[in-house]
């Protein structure tokens, strides 16, 4: 399905992504981990074509993606939804309009200017919001919602695109643990129920372990680990994060449960 070959991105003299190669054969839920600056975001942004690759290729179903321009590129972006850390909604527009933005690739500028979305699309947008449990907020402005709700609106916008791939760039980094769980469970459900490919950048190991079928570790722009969550040992994690022996998985956790775990671990020697 998705094949990335020797993908490289340079910013001036800095190399953000260094000859990354990857093959994903079937829709899966994939987590990319690594510390900040490891090139995770740049990789996703290149997949969505928000960023142009310096060299290398991206192929989806044997179609070259990295060279698309103009309308072809925008059509690909409609097929490959992106969810951002800071939600990137239009704050002063209502929730349903934000979700309807997922159909912009199919609509003319004039139709969107006069808010002429088909009734069927509006109904579908509200159904998607209902599925994510935030239908009652439909007429509110996006800025009036909490972070977790806004992120679910962003997911609804992504679903409205009816995409083949959903990319999520640190979707839970701005959220508290409760909302983080709701958002991650929503992404997992989308993968399981709709069979869509989900690729998420995650900054914590335990989230990747808990929700993903496959984990990819990046360090300094290179892919240094690619395997199942079970194969990801503590030593491997230290390697990915470039940390020493004092590193423990709980220390990076945002899960509520992890607090208990580390409290127990601390309580044992005493």
């Amino acid at each position, binding site marked *: 399905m998705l094949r990335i070959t020797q993908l490289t991105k340079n910013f001036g003299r800095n190399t953000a992504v260094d000859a990354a190669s990857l093959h994903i054969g079937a829709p899966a839920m994939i987590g990319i981990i690594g510390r900040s*600056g490891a090139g995770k975001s740049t990789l996703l942004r290149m997949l969505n074509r928000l960023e142009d690759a310096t060299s290398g290729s991206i192929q989806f179903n044997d179609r070259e993606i990295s060279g698309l321009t103009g309308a072809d590129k925008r059509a690909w972006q409609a097929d490959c939804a992106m969810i951002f850390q800071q939600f990137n909604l239009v704050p002063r527009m209502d929730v*349903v309009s934000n979700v309807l933005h997922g159909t912009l690739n199919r609509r003319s500028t004039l139709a969107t200017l*006069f*808010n*002429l*979305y088909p*009734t069927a699309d*509006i*109904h579908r947008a*509200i*159904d998607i919001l*209902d599925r994510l449990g935030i*239908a*009652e907020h*439909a*007429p509110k402005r996006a800025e009036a919602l909490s972070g977790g709700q806004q992120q679910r609106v962003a997911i609804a916008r992504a679903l409205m695109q009816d995409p083949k791939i959903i990319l999520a760039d640190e979707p839970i980094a701005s959220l508290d643990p409760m909302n983080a769980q709701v958002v991650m469970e929503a992404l997992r459900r989308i993968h399981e129920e709709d069979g869509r490919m989900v690729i998420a950048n995650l900054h914590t190991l335990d989230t990747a372990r808990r929700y993903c079928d496959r984990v990819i570790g990046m360090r300094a722009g290179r892919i240094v680990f690619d395997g199942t969550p079970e194969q990801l040992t503590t030593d491997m994690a230290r390697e990915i994060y470039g940390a020493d022996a004092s590193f423990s998985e709980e220390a990076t956790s945002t899960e509520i449960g992890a607090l208990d775990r580390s409290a127990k671990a601390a309580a044992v020697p005493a």
Partner: protein
Amino acid sequence: MSEMTAAHAQGAATAQIRESYMAQTRRKRLYGTMMLVVFVALMASGFMTAEARNAGGFWGGLHQIGDFPAALLSEAGEKLSELPANLVTYFPALVETINIAAVSTLIGGVGGILLSMLATRGLALWPRMIPVWRRLMDVMRAVPEIVIALVLIFVLGGGPVPAMIAIAFHTVGALGKLFSEVNENASLKPVEGLASVGANWSQRMILGVMPSVAPNYLSYALLRFEINIRASAILGFVGAGGIGYELKNAMAWGIGRYDEAAAIFLLLFVTIVAFDQLGSHLRDRLTHGRKEELLA
């Protein structure tokens, strides 16, 4: 059984949300259509009124719109060899024009900063005086530069000083308004922090507000500088010196000095482009620190 009822209630709630949102959308579309109809009607009627009052007639005169540029270009083309000499001749006048604009932008900018601080809620030294400062700025913006310049030329005689005063006066009002809008968006936290250490009003403004608003100030001031270059060129037409005076003489119909007019237009164009480039370069430099932090 209860699950089924719950699912049913859920479905009903969604249907209701759909219905109310559709009603809202229909209302918005209706308003939009009405606005569009009113807008088109006003444009059409306004055009017809203007057309009726026009001395020549819009459609009748439309085909002549290119006559002046064509005459100017063809004459300038014939005397192309004299262009470098013309550019050299009028360069000192251009420098005078730029000087007028620069001095008036500086003076107007300083005055604008002061007035904007006094007229921003949350920052003002005397909060009750805010409306007074605002009206003062309105007055300064309302009086056209050319009126002030004409009065001052009558009093002080022709030359660059009346033009400078006239443009600076207008600039204080214009920049004061723009700066106070920037101030409104500035965070009050640093100001509060400085107040907590016992800083006085001017210290709070200079150290607490200026650093965060400086890039926006600069970008508005540079835009104003561009506008002031044009304003100072226009004031030349009424005898305030600079390149405008030369342009007025060169542009007169039928005396065969269009090559000089073309040279002056070229100088003005290059000047505006040069200051635009300089401005964006300076803005980049000033905001560069912030950009690097964002990327990290």
